[in-house]
């Protein structure tokens, strides 16, 4: 082949692959340590369900990006600028799946994390001094932050998918403790009111845990009662994918690969 022909081919291929990259939808995952633990490689024995999402998708057709990060609440994921970065790149036809709640019950303005949110879905706010960021900050409710993700995703033509938080390994009278009167309920309220897809991971996984029993479920956690092990994260990921197949947001199921 002549050099000029080869060069043309390279240029054409480059343009084609660039176009493909540009048009490929993105499946963004945002959340806390139960979605991505540490760097997501499980080296401390703890895993988040988001780490297994890419394995379900044909990544030549959809890009799967797990931006979840340990320790963050619905509020600090925003105040650290993490959402802003995603929002800047978000385009029509992208998906944003979100799960927050594990870190939202903390104090609003303590010197350790300052990550708490106001309970509920209201529009009330609280003016605080954030001792970590060393600035005055207006803190809103869990529902307010969740609404922000949903609305801004929609504003860009994206498809928001709200998850209730996965249950912890906490038991009472042989039943796993549910969050159906707090964060799980609030997540559902936001999803319903804003017209987002809702994956009730709290209920669906709690149902599974109840059936398995406390002894078996213990193996699905590592180190504490919040963080899932490899097996725990995989079970949670299975529930997520099952719900996505059932609810088929947008064109997402086109990209799910066969097992």
């Amino acid at each position, binding site marked *: 082949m002549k050099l000029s022909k080869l060069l043309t081919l390279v240029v054409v291929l480059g343009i084609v692959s660039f176009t493909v990259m540009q048009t490929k939808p993105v499946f963004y995952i945002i959340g806390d340590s139960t979605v991505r633990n540490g760097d997501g490689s499980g080296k401390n024995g703890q895993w988040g369900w988001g780490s297994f999402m890419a394995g*379900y998708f044909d990544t030549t057709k959809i890009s799967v990006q797990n931006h979840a990060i340990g320790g963050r609440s619905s509020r600090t994921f925003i105040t650290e600028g993490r959402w802003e970065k995603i929002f800047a790149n978000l385009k029509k036809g992208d998906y944003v799946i979100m799960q927050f709640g594990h870190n939202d019950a903390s104090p609003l303005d303590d010197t350790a994390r300052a990550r708490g949110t106001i309970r509920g879905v209201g529009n009330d706010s609280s003016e605080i001094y954030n001792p970590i960021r060393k600035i005055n900050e207006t803190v809103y409710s869990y529902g307010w932050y969740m609404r922000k993700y949903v609305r801004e995703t929609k504003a860009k033509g994206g498809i928001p998918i709200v998850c209730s938080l996965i249950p912890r390994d906490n038991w009472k009278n042989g039943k796993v403790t549910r969050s159906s009167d707090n964060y799980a309920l609030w997540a559902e309220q936001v999803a319903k009111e804003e017209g987002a897809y809702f994956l009730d991971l709290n209920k669906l996984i709690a149902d599974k845990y109840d059936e398995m029993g406390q002894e078996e479920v213990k193996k699905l956690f590592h180190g504490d009662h919040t963080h899932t092990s490899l097996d725990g994260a995989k079970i949670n990921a*299975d529930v997520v*994918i*099952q719900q996505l*197949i*059932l609810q*088929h947001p947008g*064109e997402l*199921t*086109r990209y*799910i*690969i*066969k*097992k």
Partner: protein
Amino acid sequence: MKWIRANAHVLRLLLLFSVMTSFIVLSNNKPTIYIIGDSTVRNTNRPQCGWGEMIAEFFDSTQINISNQAMAGRSTRTFIKEKRWDKVMSTLTEGDYVIMQFGHNEGSKPDTSRAGYRGVLRGTGDETVELTWKDGTVETVHTYGWYLKKFIKEAKSKGARPIICSMIPRNQFVDGKVKRANNDFGKWAKEVAESEGVFFIDLNAITADKYDVLGPDEVKKLFHGDHTHTNVDGAKINAASVVEGIRNLSKELPLVTYLKK
């Protein structure tokens, strides 16, 4: 009255104009998707439900109509014999679509027994069998493929676009994988679509891929009463699979433009 008589000419023109415009409006009427098939497509026996009942929500109803003519228990053969296809043909017009899914009720050996009244010959060939019923009427039974070709040819003759779906899988797992129809009715549906040059949605494969991911415990929740009939959740998944198939054909099939954005 005097005014009417004086303006009779204008009124006559007005009348003519209104008749003409209404005709134009009528002929510009939105197209219809006719759906024909069996109980996995339409099943009013709740909690069972067919995917044809759940597909409307995917389409923009201001742009396109959906007419689900599928009937539980019918094979390609009995759907025709009972004049159900004639009924579709009587209103089918240019620009319409016919989505067909058969296969669940074709399997019995065709004869005049209770079991054989709906069975067809296997495959896509031209072979036939003659049945003589008690009352003396003679029925010629054809292959599954022959009946599909009949639907296709006749739909095309009206200027409609036929779309063949392979049948949805049953809740039958072998070694953790759902049983596929790619050696019989699914395969034949595909062969007919290819030989006739019409659109094919491999509904059996699209759905089986999902069922494999869901696994037997979850798939069980999508059926009611037996391993063939889906419930509302199952019907929704399968409707979504049909829509996925339509999207996969988007390059050649204008039907995709009628999907809700």
